[in-house]
């Protein structure tokens, strides 16, 4: 028997060593850094079958982007129809659960407040041409902007759709001339920079809004984002946000907060962009007790919670506070701005602008952690709120341990003092951009800008404006760190850890019953005291015994 056991034991140990070695080499599931950057990896369509430089229809001069679009549509005959259903075109999303109309067309946020009424400026990021007021024709396929997503030269840009006040329009002067013919011939699958044109600049600047989407992701090192890293996987956005007929997977309005399905078979599951859709429901390879326990966490923790230890990394700051109350100050009658923050990559950021107010930035931020069921709820222009109960959540979300859909997610929390209708207790549409005298970015008269904005939208306005304290929450899901930088156990399994104050679950190391610990400690210390006492009496009595 003995030699058998001995041999079995040796075989087992050798097997374990080989397995451990193989693991160390493959670094599963995190790929190692590669020295030679590859092309950005897009979705399933990676590997095009057409060279657009050879297309005759593109070998001419184009006067406008819309002319290019017409050329595109002459071959991609169904694309216009497909495209017009997506949110980049409609700027509208109807929440199936609440019936609320969301999307940039309707929402008020606590950054530049509202796109509605300011389309001349804001619709620069609309994937179309010429939306400057309510008269835009959403059924005109020729107005689709194909190039903003498909330009591969990096030279394409769009100007605001209307001129705006001279005070602001100067920002756009002196842009280099575009060669639309060259751009049209360059088209290909979108790269990070294409999506980033708008998504990195939400809220009016680089990384201002989301905190986890910044220009640092155009060419990020693997350490900033393990998927997008140019020295690693080099994923384009569409590698995860896969498309089907120009509809994208992954929605901010309705997040899949807890994926119960994981990876699908080929051809299945083309509607989600969750971590699980690639990594499955047991993402950690079970090669140790700890990794087994880590897989247990998947039911209550979003992957992002541990794998994005900080956001606004990579040298680009995000805005954390915005105070509209200080907007409108002028020097010698003209607006001005102040630099006051130098971010990680050395660039200066404005901390004050007459047109917007005071800003606070921060980098490498620890998120706020909350139970999240994926459903964001919005305070829209129609919502009446109690102005005495501030801060008002511009968007909030629900979630609880018990609902079966929630997990703990990381969020960026934005804090803003912003204009509101104090008489009616509602948010307001402020008319910021325009050539007229009512636009705030020209006259610095908030009351007038609100009155104009509300009138334009046909909404009631009490005439009393003021400023309310608001917050908004932004689920953090990008800037996934390599696994070696993921949070360790002690980040949460400790008193005063990251999940301090989050209820609905028992966390060893954080949680304990005070009474139980008190009774337990009294029992242990009491026993020790009893033993000591007993021993002392024994010693004393034995001395006495010797004396007598």
């Amino acid at each position: 028997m003995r030699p058998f056991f001995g041999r079995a034991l040796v075989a087992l140990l050798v097997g374990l060593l080989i397995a451990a070695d193989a693991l160390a080499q493959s670094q599963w599931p995190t790929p190692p850094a590669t020295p030679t950057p590859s092309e950005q990896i897009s979705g399933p369509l990676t590997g095009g079958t057409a060279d657009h430089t050879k297309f005759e229809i593109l070998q001419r001069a184009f006067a406008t982007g819309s002319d290019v679009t017409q050329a595109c549509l002459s071959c991609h005959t169904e694309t216009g129809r497909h495209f017009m259903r997506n949110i980049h075109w409609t700027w509208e999303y109807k929440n199936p659960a609440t019936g609320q109309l969301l999307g940039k067309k309707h929402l008020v946020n606590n950054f530049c407040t509202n796109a509605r009424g300011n389309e001349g400026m804001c619709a620069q990021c609309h994937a179309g041409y010429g939306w400057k007021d309510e008269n835009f024709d959403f059924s005109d396929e020729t107005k689709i902007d194909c190039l903003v997503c498909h330009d591969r030269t990096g030279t394409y840009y769009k100007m605001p759709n209307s001129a705006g006040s001279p005070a602001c329009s100067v920002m756009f002067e002196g842009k280099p001339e575009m060669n639309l013919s060259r751009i049209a011939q360059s088209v290909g699958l979108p790269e990070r920079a294409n999506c980033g044109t708008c998504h990195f600049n939400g809220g009016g600047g680089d990384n201002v809004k989301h905190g986890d989407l910044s220009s640092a992701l155009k060419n990020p090192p693997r350490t900033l984002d393990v998927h997008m890293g140019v020295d690693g996987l080099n994923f384009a956005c569409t590698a995860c946000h896969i498309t089907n007929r120009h509809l994208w997977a992954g929605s901010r309005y309705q997040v899949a907060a807890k994926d119960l399905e994981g990876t699908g078979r080929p051809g299945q599951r083309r509607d989600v962009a969750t971590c699980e859709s690639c990594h499955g429901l047991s993402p950690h390879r079970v090669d140790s007790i700890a990794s087994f326990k880590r897989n247990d966490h998947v039911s209550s923790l979003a992957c992002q919670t541990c794998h994005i230890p900080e956001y606004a990394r990579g040298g680009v700051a995000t805005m954390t506070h915005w105070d509209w109350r200080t907007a409108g100050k002028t020097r010698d009658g003209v607006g001005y701005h102040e630099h006051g923050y130098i971010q990680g990559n050395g660039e200066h950021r404005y901390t004050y602008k007459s047109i917007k107010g005071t800003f606070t930035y921060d980098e490498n931020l620890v998120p706020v952690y909350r139970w999240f069921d994926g459903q964001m709820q919005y305070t829209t222009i129609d919502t009446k709120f109690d102005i005495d109960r501030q801060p008002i959540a511009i968007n909030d979300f629900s979630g609880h341990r018990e609902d079966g859909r929630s997990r703990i997610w990381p969020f960026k929390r934005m804090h803003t003092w912003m204009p509101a209708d104090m008489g009616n207790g509602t948010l307001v549409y402020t008319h910021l951009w325009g050539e007229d005298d009512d636009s705030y970015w020209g006259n610095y008269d908030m009351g007038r800008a609100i009155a104009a904005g509300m009138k334009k939208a046909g909404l009631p306005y009490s005439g009393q404006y003021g400023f309310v304290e608001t917050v908004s929450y932004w689920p953090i899901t990008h800037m996934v760190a390599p696994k070696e930088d993921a949070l360790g156990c002690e980040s949460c399994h400790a008193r005063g850890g990251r999940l301090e104050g989050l209820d609905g679950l028992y966390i060893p190391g954080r949680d304990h019953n005070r009474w139980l610990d008190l009774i337990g400690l009294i029992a242990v210390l009491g026993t020790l005291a009893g033993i000591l006492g007993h021993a002392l009496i024994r010693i004393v009595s034995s001395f006495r015994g010797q004396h007598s």
Partner: protein
Amino acid sequence: MTIRRVKIFSLFERFWHWSQMLLIMILLFSGFGLHGFHHLIGFETAVTLHTLAALLLLLLWAFSVFWLFTTKTWRHFIPTLSGMWQVLRFYSYGIFKGEHHPYRKAYWRKHNPLQALAYLMLKILLFPLIWITGLAYLGYFLWRDLPQASDWLTGFAYVHTGAAYAILVFVLVHVYMLTTGHSFREHLMPMINGFDDVDLTPEEEAYLLKDEPENIR
């Protein structure tokens, strides 16, 4: 009746006792680390140690239960009131007077009544409490989606912690007891070499001498 040195703790019992001791030490140390009482080892190491030691201990218990029943040695753990009063009186009074321990080990009964009761409580109350709650904790992934799973887990965690305190109290008293009666060494040695002074009936003595001469000196 003669007192002879007889092997009362078999090799398995001694192995069982000491490996159990080691595992319980590891469990107490890592467990109170997980609980946040000390940070001498990292949380991940503590989880690994705690889980491994727990699984090994469960395996050991499975073996020992099997062994106890096949060798019928489970009878040593049956509680009795006979002699209990004298033992209690000894520890709380007689011991200070230098009296001798009132209990003499018998071949069929190697624990005094207090010991038997204490070990029995440990076996049928504390150990099951801690391993049932511990297994529930370890297997949380199997039932985490049931309603109120989190509340149940909290309950299990409390019972588990409570049982751990009780086991620590047992360990303290158990070790202290080695210093009572005879000497520390005399209490310790039987659990090392297996032999202790036992009061044998003539029949037992005759049997041992004839059939198991290696177990009697």
